[in-house]
């Protein structure tokens, strides 16, 4: 097969946080990087994110949270994926995440955390290096 598989990612806003400027900018950066980006919109539950990600067959879920509920919402997404036997969707997070939460989130299965000031290019490059389109 000459053709490469397209990277499909989901950008999701869990919880009651109503600020999605960041998520939209990230979605656009991913599009400009050549990815197919499914955007769920605001106020999603971990459940609805996981089920949508499965239906969309994405390679990565990017969670955005600016309202402080990341310590529950992010690991919950990872847990629900596991519960459904999904082990090949990378979960990353971004937003206003205090430093002291980062190592904890990592240990709970969030592959990477991007905080304010992270450069779009760096985020895109991280995804390119760490998330591969599913094969077979």
């Amino acid at each position, binding site marked *: *097969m*000459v*053709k490469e*598989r*397209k990277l*499909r990612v989901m950008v999701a806003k869990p919880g009651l946080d109503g600020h999605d400027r960041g998520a939209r900018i990230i*979605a*656009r950066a*991913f*599009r*400009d*990087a*050549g*990815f*197919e*980006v*499914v*955007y*769920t*919109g605001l106020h*999603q539950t971990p*459940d*609805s994110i996981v*089920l*949508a990600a*499965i*239906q*969309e*067959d994405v390679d990565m879920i990017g969670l955005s949270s600016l309202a402080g509920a990341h310590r529950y919402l992010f690991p919950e997404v990872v847990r629900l994926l596991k519960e459904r036997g*999904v082990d090949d969707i990378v979960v990353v997070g971004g937003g206003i995440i205090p430093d002291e939460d980062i190592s904890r989130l990592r240990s709970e299965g969030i592959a990477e955390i991007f905080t304010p000031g992270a450069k779009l290019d760096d985020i895109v490059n991280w995804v390119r290096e760490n998330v591969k*389109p*599913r094969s*077979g």
Partner: protein
Amino acid sequence: MDMASAVEKVIAGDVRTVARLIRDIDDKVPEVREVLKDLYVHTGKAYVIGITGAPGVGKSTLVDQMVNHYRKLGKTVGVLAVDPTSPFTGGAILGDRIRMQRHSLDDGVFIRSLATRGHFGGLTESTRSAIDVLDAMGKDYVIVETVGVGQDEVDVVKSAQTTVVMVIPGMGDDIQAIKAGILEVGDVFLINKADREGADKTFNELRQMIDMGHNKYGGDKWKPPILKAEAVFDRGVAELLETIEKHRNYLLQSSGEKGLAKKRERVRQELAEMVKSRLVQEVVEHLVGSGEFDRAVDAITSGEKDPYSACDELLVSKLGALK
């Protein structure tokens, strides 16, 4: 994917398998054709509805409401929401789910966003295959939502049994766009956001255009009704569903000789599309892969060759003698 068990899993309605199969279809994985061959006998049960209209007319909102109505009637629904791929980067933002996320917890609904991909993307064929998969999965209705601009997207809409063309008031140019070919594919016209000024004017314009084609709609032929709706408030959606059922009954009654001719025409189109896209895929990919294509590009750029001869040579090298 284990292709052998994939067929059984799709028929059993396994969401993960269906999702991955559609990905494979989109990525043109060759093995997927074997699965589609075996799935074909399990298709033909779902009723396929196309929703098309310019960006911003409210397609996703309408589809969301339609899904809601069908679920209340106990019907299962598959949705394919097509969004454009950026011709500059190859990426796409697929945002149709935003308006439909309330159905994501519902087992009876499967929503998938598709990107149009590039000009060798074969949108029509892959969307048709995706429809087949959702059909085989057992969905009662499959709704395909597309912007409906350009040949590819019009063709996609043609694979629907009932096509709904959406417009909104106050976009005079919109009607102009419809003239370019969408008018012919519409079985039902829906003026959304009908509380806006100009809804009656739009209605009259549409009526006129449909009447002008009265030869086409003469006798016992289906004449496309024009409906008004405010999808966001769920107004006019129940009426749309009724009209779709009427059209479905009309298609059933007009079966027999005429129906057979229509079916034959659709099969002809689908097969032509399949052959075309397979040819393009095989030939172009082989030529690109072998480097012949780029050598020809270089030769034309440097002025050694004209593109017409280069094209002839490329095709002869792949297909043998040309007429």
